[in-house]
């Protein structure tokens, strides 16, 4: 079903030219939805500003509404004014970009025939040449019907087609596998791009660079030198307008299943042979498989969940979860999860990974801390080393992206006193005008067909296997659901979880 590979372009060479994708038509299902107006279109516009879109490029939005293309472009423009990363909007560039934005109504089945013809027309007229990327920016309930329609109306025949889907990839292992099966009826696994937007963040990609481009970290990156690892994904926000979804999912499915386990995989994985999509994902899968499953009977010992009550966040009063719009007053949905996890392999045997994530925590902060063991023998007196904390390498993902290394240094007075100091590296990224948004990176990669930063089916399934066990234990009545005041670091049980091992959470 593939089109002959294009002739190489001798002009495209050297370190300065580079990442522009092949000509392509991007088809957005859910063209009138939130994701399209908040993320996808602003990302495309910003790519156009950076001259990163191909010379032959078209966007075809599809949705149920019957609106004219002109009216559609006007709404996109209004949303862009609000959501673009760069402002003010360059109206000239937007107008030129918008000329290539089309709209097709898919209220009924015939819309898909219109879509097919429109794409065939663009292939010739705009030069998109049979390359198309279908982006499912719809609620997950629409995924399967759309995939059926793509097949029934022959939208993927005799062309180079790829598909992008957004999380959630199912609600459990069974539904995730069913979805993959459905997708694979139309696309090969290589053509399926599952977005976990965390992987598009510069600093997350930097985990791999830090680990595998440097020689000094890898030798100590194991159970022999690392005491434990802490990963925190904290949000100060509540559930915003996602009540219905959140009631079903909870934090376990919303964050742990994807973002948090992906961070564990990147920190814990073995070095890949190359920075190539499958080499990286093979290694991630291997470490995901090595995470010790938590048996229902052990759940209370290894997992703490919680739900936020009333409190104060960033100086403002915050309602309890059960008081939020659209939430049942007796809801037992988890808004906080802490896990004491182990990776059963040669590198990490016996080294705990403490993971925590939640809504309505004191601040928005994502970081990974590698806590090293103390020096084997105390050379200095106890008084001298009183203020000394263990060495830690902290990778801050957001905000203030950077890396800091904590080590002991002599206080410059007579005699020996040791205090911990931080050696900080701040990624210029947060100060550069051109630090790309995760969606810009990921859409560009999908257009180019580079799947390195996308999650593969077997990874998704392995993540569900781990999470499903915990969810089942909860549904069977293992584990309490303590409340924590909004604006605190979760319930006291979470502190206990780590304190039992003689350790404590860092102040993230």
């Amino acid at each position: 079903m593939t089109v002959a590979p294009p002739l190489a372009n001798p002009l495209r060479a050297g370190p300065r030219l580079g990442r522009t994708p092949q000509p392509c038509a991007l088809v957005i299902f859910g063209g009138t939805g939130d994701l399209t107006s908040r993320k996808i279109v602003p990302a495309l516009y910003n790519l156009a500003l950076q001259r990163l879109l191909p010379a032959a490029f078209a966007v075809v939005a599809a949705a149920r509404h019957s609106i004219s293309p002109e009216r559609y472009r006007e709404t996109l423009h209004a949303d862009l004014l609000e959501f673009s990363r760069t402002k003010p909007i360059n109206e000239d560039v937007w107008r030129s970009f918008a000329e290539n934005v089309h709209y097709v109504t898919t209220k009924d089945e015939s819309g898909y025939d219109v879509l097919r013809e429109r794409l065939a027309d663009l292939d010739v007229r705009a030069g998109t040449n049979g390359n198309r990327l279908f982006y499912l920016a719809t609620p997950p309930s629409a995924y399967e019907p759309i995939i059926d329609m793509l097949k029934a109306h022959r939208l993927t025949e005799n062309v180079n087609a790829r598909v992008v889907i957004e999380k959630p990839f199912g609600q459990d292992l069974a539904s995730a596998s069913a979805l993959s099966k459905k997708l694979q009826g139309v696309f090969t696994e290589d053509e399926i791009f599952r977005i976990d937007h965390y992987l598009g963040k510069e600093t997350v990609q930097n985990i791999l660079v830090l680990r595998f481009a440097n020689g000094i970290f890898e030798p100590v990156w194991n159970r022999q030198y690392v005491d434990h690892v802490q990963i925190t994904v904290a949000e100060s926000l509540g559930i915003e307008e996602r009540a219905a979804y959140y009631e079903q999912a909870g934090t376990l499915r919303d964050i742990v299943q994807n973002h948090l386990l992906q961070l564990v995989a990147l920190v814990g994985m073995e070095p890949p042979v190359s920075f190539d999509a499958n080499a990286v994902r093979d290694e991630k899968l291997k470490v995901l498989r090595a995470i010790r499953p938590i048996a229902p009977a052990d759940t209370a010992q290894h997992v703490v969940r919680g739900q936020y009550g009333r409190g104060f966040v960033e100086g403002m009063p915050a309602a309890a979860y059960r008081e939020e719009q659209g939430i049942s007053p007796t809801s037992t949905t988890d808004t906080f999860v802490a896990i004491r996890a182990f990776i059963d392999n040669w590198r990490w045997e016996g080294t705990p990974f403490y993971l925590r994530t939640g809504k309505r925590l004191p601040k928005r902060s994502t970081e990974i801390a590698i806590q090293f063991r103390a020096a084997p023998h105390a050379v200095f007196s106890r008084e001298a080393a009183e203020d000394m904390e263990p060495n830690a390498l902290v990778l801050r993902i957001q905000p203030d992206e950077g890396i800091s290394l904590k080590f002991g240094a002599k206080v410059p007075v007579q005699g020996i006193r040791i205090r911990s100091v931080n050696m900080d590296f701040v990624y210029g990224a947060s100060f550069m005008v051109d630090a790309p948004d995760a969606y810009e990176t990921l859409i560009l990669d999908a257009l180019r067909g580079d799947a390195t930063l996308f999650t593969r089916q077997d990874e998704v399934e392995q993540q569900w296997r781990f999470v499903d066990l915990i969810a089942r234990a909860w549904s069977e009545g293992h584990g309490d659901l303590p409340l924590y005041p909004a604006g605190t670091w979760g319930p006291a049980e979470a502190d206990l979880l780590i304190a039992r091992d003689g350790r404590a959470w860092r102040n993230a």
Partner: protein
Amino acid sequence: MIEDRIDEAVWGKRAEGVAALELELARMRRSVNAHAREQGVAVARASVLNLVVFATRDVHARRAAATIDDLAMRHPSRAIVVLADRRREGIAPGLQMHCRQSQPGGREQVSCEHILIRARGDVDDRIASAVIPLLLPDLPVFLWWTGTPPLDAPHFEELVGLADRLIVDSGDFARPAGTLPRLHAVARAGHGRHGLTDFNWTRITAWRELVSQFFDVPAWRPFLDGVTGLRIGFSVDADGREIHPSQALLLLGWFASRLGWRAVESLAPSEAGGLLFAMQRADGQEIQTRVRPRFMRGIDEGNLSGLRIQATDGSRHAEFVVKRVEDSPHATTTVIIDGRVIAERLVPLGRPGVSELLGEELTIARSDAIYEDALAALVALA
């Protein structure tokens, strides 16, 4: 002109010699740290590179200082500006040093150290010896030479010998058509030791990108093998006096080197300041190439104003046009096949300032073989 008095607001306190300068820098670090601690922030003395700037004009030195400040957050550096004052009369020859710290953008998290070495009189042979002890060890050295580099002068060779990377701006060259091909020899001599780039090469990156994008489209790709004509325009002032064809020449060199075009003969200058070249494609077909000056509002002299590629794929005739929009930071790109406009769009070109140009150069720490190839092609045309 260089003023006699050094503006200490820009260049900081005077220090007598390298040792005194190091002491002064250490003192400044402590005071910045103490101040920052009161504010509850930590200062990182992060350095990722040494940047040495050579200038013979005050305005170039000040522009460099301002650029270094702009860049300090992204590329914290030890910056050493050498300002050479060649007047020999009435001055005691010698080197005079000043230093200061800056906190880019008012943020106190990263500090950057500036050093000025002012060389007065005939002291070129001493300059390198003052720079060497001031370089931070183990970090790459970027040498930014403002103006036309004196390619044969010993002090140029000495400073280049310290550098991992030489940066020039052929936009400042007095006679680019002569100096550009000679730069190729510098690049070749530096192989394995230092890389070479040119701000003018960075300025045309957007143009090269837009041209490349035409031929990423499979339907248009065949035309690239059948180019019959190329016209490149560059901007001049209204009187046609400031003629700086370097960017246009580099773009021509790039086409020729990437596509295997050979020079048949370089024809005499055509219209005012323009150049006409007869070239041959790899298959022997002739290509008319013309570089010509154009007056256009809102563009700095020397910047590209437009380009037009004429080509055939055997049966059809096509034109690929990139044209700067007057008084705007945009260009239009147009594809015309058999007289019909097939595609047209507007793209931002930007007006990259010196900070952005230097910033881009500093992110690429290796030499750019494509640039060297383009220079080599110009050697054949000269």
